[in-house]
């Protein structure tokens, strides 16, 4: 990793911004927070406009989720990690649909946030346990067909929060657990509205050998 990953934090709570910045800069390797603010414009202007990853609070000063801002960021190819108070399955699924690379609830801690940010910087998806739960419980008509093993990985990951545990339970390696989770996200990236972030995610999966071009 030649260059350091940069991030912009959009959240209406100063304490959350400070906490997120502290977690990211404390990561190994550290992630630089180049801009932060309570308004989405910090992600469009100045240093924030070129940051690798946008850590985005979905509820900016209002009860309604800021789906419009999220859609505009994704359409501009920005890699967004949604960081939300709400653990609402439908909201999480809709964020993925709009092109967010990750949906994290604020109940999930530093480890998940750092990993999600780092994965997003490389156009890779990250699926935290709560999001795995939302995907496992997804019964919408447009949902992609998951294999039995993929569904089982989602549930186990949601239940245990430990990839080692999942790997042991299913008799596979931890990296295979990751592959399953990424493959599931590729399947999700290929449904619904098109977004540059989703295309980049699929392209990355092909590049990583997770899926073949023939699978498309």
């Amino acid at each position: 990793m030649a260059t350091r990953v940069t991030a912009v934090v959009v959240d209406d709570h100063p304490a959350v911004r400070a906490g997120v910045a502290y977690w990211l800069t404390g990561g190994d390797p550290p992630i630089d927070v180049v801009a932060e603010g309570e308004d989405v414009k910090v992600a469009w202007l100045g240093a924030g406009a070129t940051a690798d990853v946008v850590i985005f609070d979905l509820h900016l000063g209002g009860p309604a989720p800021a789906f419009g801002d999220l859609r505009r960021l994704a359409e501009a190819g920005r890699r967004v990690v949604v960081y939300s108070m709400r653990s609402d399955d439908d909201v999480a699924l809709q964020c993925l649909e709009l092109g967010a690379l990750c949906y994290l609830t604020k109940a999930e801690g530093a480890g998940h946030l750092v990993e999600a940010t780092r994965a997003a910087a490389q156009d890779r998806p990250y699926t935290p346990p709560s999001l795995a739960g939302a995907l496992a419980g997804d019964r919408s008509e447009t949902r992609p067909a998951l294999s039995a093993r993929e569904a089982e990985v989602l549930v186990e990951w949601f239940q245990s929060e430990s990839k080692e545990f999942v790997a042991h339970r299913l008799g596979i390696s931890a990296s295979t657990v990751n592959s399953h989770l990424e493959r599931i996200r590729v399947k999700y990236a290929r449904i619904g509205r098109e977004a540059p972030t989703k295309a980049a995610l699929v392209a990355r999966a092909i590049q990583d050998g997770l899926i073949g071009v023939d699978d498309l």
Partner: protein
Amino acid sequence: MRESATDSEEGAGPEFAADADGIASSAQTTAARDAAETATGSAAAHNAPGDPMPGPAAASTATADPAIRLAAAIRIVLLGVTAMIQLGLGLAPLLRHHAAYRPPVLADLAYATLAGVTALCALWVLRRKPLPVTVAAGGALVVLVASFAATAALPPDSFFREPHWSFGLVGWHLLVLLADRVPALLVALAVHTAASVTQFLLDGTPTRTELGDAAIVLFGVTVFQLAIAGLIRLLDRRASEAAAAAAERERLAIRAALADQAGHDLRTGFAEQLGATLPLLAGLADGTVDPRTPDARARCALAAAQLRRLFAENDDVPDPLVHEVTACLDVAERRGVAVTLAVSGDVVDVPAPIRRDLTGPVLTALAAARTRARVSVLRTPELVRVAVVADGDAEPAGSAAVPVTSQSRDGQTWMEARWRPE
């Protein structure tokens, strides 16, 4: 003085009222308890108070009501009085002055008719049944006609005197016939008296002495019969009140018995669901369980969690399953275990017994957790899965409807309870 008296009165007022309330409510409670005891006793014991007729008839609904019982008794008494007056006071003057009646056969006929009405009434009255309205109305009419005939057949100057045996007697007949219908009774008595008086006045200009004698008899007989009518009415009202009081008492008794039963059910229900709590408390009380041991403390933690979950079961919340799972968490958190809860999927309607089966293993697993635990609820319309991953060894047991799988490794336990909605 006046002021102080007023003060003390005012001061005593509310207090007294409060006392009176207290007495009233405690008296009510006592009554309810007594009533409940009566209700739980045998049916015979319940019917016993104030029941003059034991046996099958006493149990019938017709005689169960004290008001109806009293009315029947009054009618029997009136019938007896009427029969005795007709025989004892009516027959002798009829026979003595028989030849003087104009004609005698009319007086005989009137007497026979009145006797016939008495006999007819006896058919119902002696069986303690109320007179049908046709019998009462027809009988009253016949009696009035008989009275008119008997009065018309009187010898001269004998109005309201010995030969006028029918005047007093007819009033009794009317009482028997119309005892249950006081307004009709008053009308019939008025008609009877008015007719007799009219006949008396039409018969010829009465002398002053005759008028005085007539007034005395008229007054004496009428007032006596009216008093009887009033008495009947009073008794009837009292009996109705007694009946209402009895009904209220019975209602209270039933309510008390029901509340008792509900309380009993609740206690047994709780005792079943209390699980480990009762034996644990008993063990602590008699010293066989030592609260200093980790085992006893673990049992206490489990019992506390069970109680907490049991209380949560009766809460009215939109998502009872998660509510109860949260209740399970509370107790572990209070023990210092870091518990995270993750919920996914829409609310699925889970019946209370199934919720108990789903949360029971969670309790067991959390009770064994040492420092960390993750509880998750994952719901889809076809499957509800409640899982716990914790650092501690536990082997939760499932049930027929809710199978439980668990696995332990390196001090970590994973367990999952599953339920498939029908």
